[in-house]
């Protein structure tokens, strides 16, 4: 049974993270998130206090970014800052320079530091599929599971889109041991349908594209 708009909204982490996103745009994101019951929102960090205020008492989760190639203890500081503001989902990027250098033990330890910091809250770990070969994707999924993340997430969206093929590779490697969040350049319902079929349970999409996909899902 293909998803309708409401069901897709419940799988949606609505994002607004472009460098130039403003306070006004953040308020718009929050209005939509509450109206349509997005699963979670990722807004610009300077406006986390505004987001915290707007989401208090709602069913919308409050997402926090936690960095990429900084030392792990600095990433943990980002997470702690989010925790202090009421964030309850945490997205991090694996340390790609370590990964590409074959320093796998360091990659896992980095994830574990964040795992320990956020406790029982959801931790998603981005492996940046557009920059990886199929073999590297498989390895990265394995390390993400080993590090204790709840989700393997595909991409930040800056280095090219996540493809259905990427999701196939992630899904095959994950074998149900970790949930999958697809993100980065996902713009149409057809892609979303195919990815759900492959086991994706969460989507990271700009809220504008998210609204368009919801509409398409309701109109089929």
């Amino acid at each position, binding site marked *: 049974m293909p998803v309708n708009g409401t069901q897709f909204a419940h799988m949606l982490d609505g994002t607004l993270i472009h460098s130039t*996103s403003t306070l*006004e745009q953040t308020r718009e994101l929050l209005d939509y998130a509450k109206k349509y019951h997005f699963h979670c929102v990722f807004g610009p960090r300077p406006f986390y206090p505004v987001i915290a205020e707007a989401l208090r008492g709602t069913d919308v989760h409050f997402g926090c970014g936690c960095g990429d190639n900084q030392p792990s203890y*600095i990433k943990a500081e980002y997470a702690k800052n989010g925790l202090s503001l009421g964030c309850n989902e945490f997205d991090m990027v694996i340390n790609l320079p370590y990964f590409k*250098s074959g320093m796998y033990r360091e990659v896992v330890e980095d994830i574990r530091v964040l795992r320990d910091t956020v406790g029982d809250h959801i931790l998603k770990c981005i492996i940046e599929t557009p920059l990886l070969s199929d073999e590297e994707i498989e390895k990265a999924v394995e390390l993400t599971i080993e590090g204790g993340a709840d989700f393997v997430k595909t991409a930040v969206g800056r280095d090219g889109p996540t493809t259905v093929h990427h999701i196939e590779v992630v899904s095959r490697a994950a074998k149900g041991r970790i949930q999958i969040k697809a993100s980065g350049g996902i713009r149409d319902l057809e892609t979303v349908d195919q990815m759900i079929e492959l086991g994706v349970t969460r989507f990271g999409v700009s809220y504008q594209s998210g609204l368009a996909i919801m509409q398409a899902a309701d109109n089929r």
Partner: protein
Amino acid sequence: MLDATQIGSCCTKDDMEKLIALAHEHHFFSVIGPRCFVPLLAAGVRGSDTIAGSGCCTDTGCEPGYLKAHAALDSLRLGAGEIDMVMNLHYFKSGMYQEVVEDIRAVKEAVGDHVLKCIIEVPLLDDGEIKTAAELVVEGGADFVKTATGTIPQPTTVHQVELIAKAVRGRAQIKAAGGIRTLQTVEEMIGLGVTRFGVSVGSALKIMEAADAR
């Protein structure tokens, strides 16, 4: 005048070793890599006339000032000699200029006498915004106005550097970075007062070669 950079997500420990070897050969002003490799770079250039530089925030400069300050201090502790930061673009685009200045000031207070360069990300700004941003960087106390992170596809132009030079009027130095690829561009920018360049090491070697061959 060169901050030789290699900061792509995919650069490896081997790339850092190569960068260090090139620094010893060519005497770059500084070398900048991913932050997880600051200790490696610092150790590699110790005792030479090159220093290790370091970022202290994300490419959007979005985190609270105290986190930037904390990360800057940590990089100095790990052996970096200079710090590059990004102005808080969200605050800037929201017209929250006081917050922009306070953010820069927090980092400058943390790094003390160490050089602080503040990126304003010119490809995302119009001419008026570039002037305002340069003014705020001076007000925040950074030592350099730096043009761009290099993560936006558009390069820093000579025109943009000219706007910054007019705005700062010698009150801060200028570091030009982001898509600078030719000797001609470099010369025009030096003519406008640029004292430091941030260029990926591969492009930098070509510019050096061109400068030697004329």
